[in-house]
């Protein structure tokens, strides 16, 4: 099939709504994945920056 009628989005991407608001919760500071998260957060790195290091 082809894209629906009236599909006129630039760069083929349409935004409809933002995400629902989040809930703040406390992560358990345990395990290798949390430590990676803490490292990213403390150095304000994104995932891809972190992957490169």
């Amino acid at each position, binding site marked *: 099939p082809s894209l629906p009628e009236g599909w006129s989005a630039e760069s083929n991407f349409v935004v409809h*709504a933002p995400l*629902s608001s989040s809930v*703040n*919760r406390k992560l358990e500071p345990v395990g290798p994945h949390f*430590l990676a998260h*803490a490292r990213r957060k*403390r150095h304000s790195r994104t995932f891809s920056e972190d992957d490169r290091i």
Partner: protein
Amino acid sequence: MSAPTSPPPESTEVDSKTVIGIAFGNTTSSIAYTTPDGKAEVIANEEGDRQIPSVLSYVGSEEYHGTQAKSHLVRNANNTVAYFRDFLGKSFADIDPTNSHNSAHPADIDGTPSFNLQQSDDETTTAVSVSEVARRHLVRLKDSASDFLGSKVTGCVITVPTDFSEAQREALIAAAKAAELEVLQIIHEPVAACLAYDARNNEVPTDKTILVVDLGGTRCDAAVVSSRGGMYTIIATAHDYELGGLQLDNVLVDHFAKEFLKKHKIDPRETPRSLARMKLEAEGTKRTLSLGTSATISIESLAGGYDFHSTVNRLRYELLSKKVFDQIVKLAENVVAKADLDLLDIDEVILSGGTSHTPKIASRLAQIFPESTPINAPATSATALNPSELSARGAAIQASLVAEFDHEDIEQSTHPAVTVAPHLAKSIGVCIDGAEQAFQTLLEAQTAVPARRTAQFIAPNGGDVVVRICEGVREIVVTKPEKKPSNVDRVIAEAGIKDVKKGAKIEVTVNVADDLSLNLAARVVGGQQTVRGSVE
């Protein structure tokens, strides 16, 4: 008394720290370390025990610890301290001394719970505060680990229940410090159990909601933990301070006491010493019943000079303990309800703590969950780890992870600025027109952001494809008890990919930042075309 030993070589600079994990319980404690290849192993003390009773006993100037001290509960109850972990960091007014009735009683010394113990060869008693008792206990644990590892243990990670207050944590750190043991971190018991399981298979952890039921000797704790990409968040906890293995021991004590009473017209529960002996032996019988279908008990000269021998089979024991099992099931149901979840939302159950060896408890819990939900206990899963070792193993793994960190590093990483993260309220997934499954979840609800997930989908028809990013909500259809993959709640964004061959794979990566902006990349695997977009 021993030959003068050369002072320990202090010059050898500590190039690598020796760290262990300690599970410090009211009833038993255990110690574990990680092998160089990253596997956690529980250490046995000199007596060969892996579950070391948290008991200290004094005879003259001798100090006894562990199983030896526990046997002193019969002859030397007043100089034996047991069940003291939960007294740490509390004022005398706040403690519940119920479990101390059969051992040294806590006394009020300036508000701190203390024990009056005879520690020398004369009759004088001295007051020993609960933190000093904890220090001595930790010293013994540390020494056992040091002897086993052949090097002095310097640091440790200790597990505590989730309801441990700040004051209790500080008291524990202080007691460890007095024992020359640096506490690298204090972690929660249910999370340690999850970590022990996740560390077992070194693959990328899946997103799942885990119910951890920790069944101890004097208390039972339950927690719902959401595990997302290997990060854990505790959603709800429940505690019962009057439920545990001791109650099961009492069931057996009552059963056997009635039998003895019928035969000899003497109630062995009426004299403290014979009651203590019965309790000690009943515990052994209970353990045997977890492994075999019948067990014996035999106590020489129990009361009135009569010996006591008897047998009990597992069926009879399970019948007598039904009330306790019911309470455990209820605790599990309560905590799931507290988390605003249904039993169907639980993907996995982990049974932890010594009482989890009881086969009936595992099978009772298995009954309330769908058959597909794994119940990790020895009776219901062949691959289950020893439930008594989970906390210590988890602590040992965490200890090895943070061993090289500076104190400041750990402090910063565990700071609320890092640990408090926004969690998604609804799951985020992808709908592809014509695909078999309407909605495929990429990020589950309760995932901490920032988070990133990638998944591949097959283009069902070929031609142009619309990748629809949606938020979903879980729905339970009552007609058939089955957890449905989330239903579409609303569409967030759409990405169109043109001219896709039928059956081609489409890879979708979703990246949610902590300000809840979403980045999407969709591409055909092996093709040139990529659609990117972001939702602010």
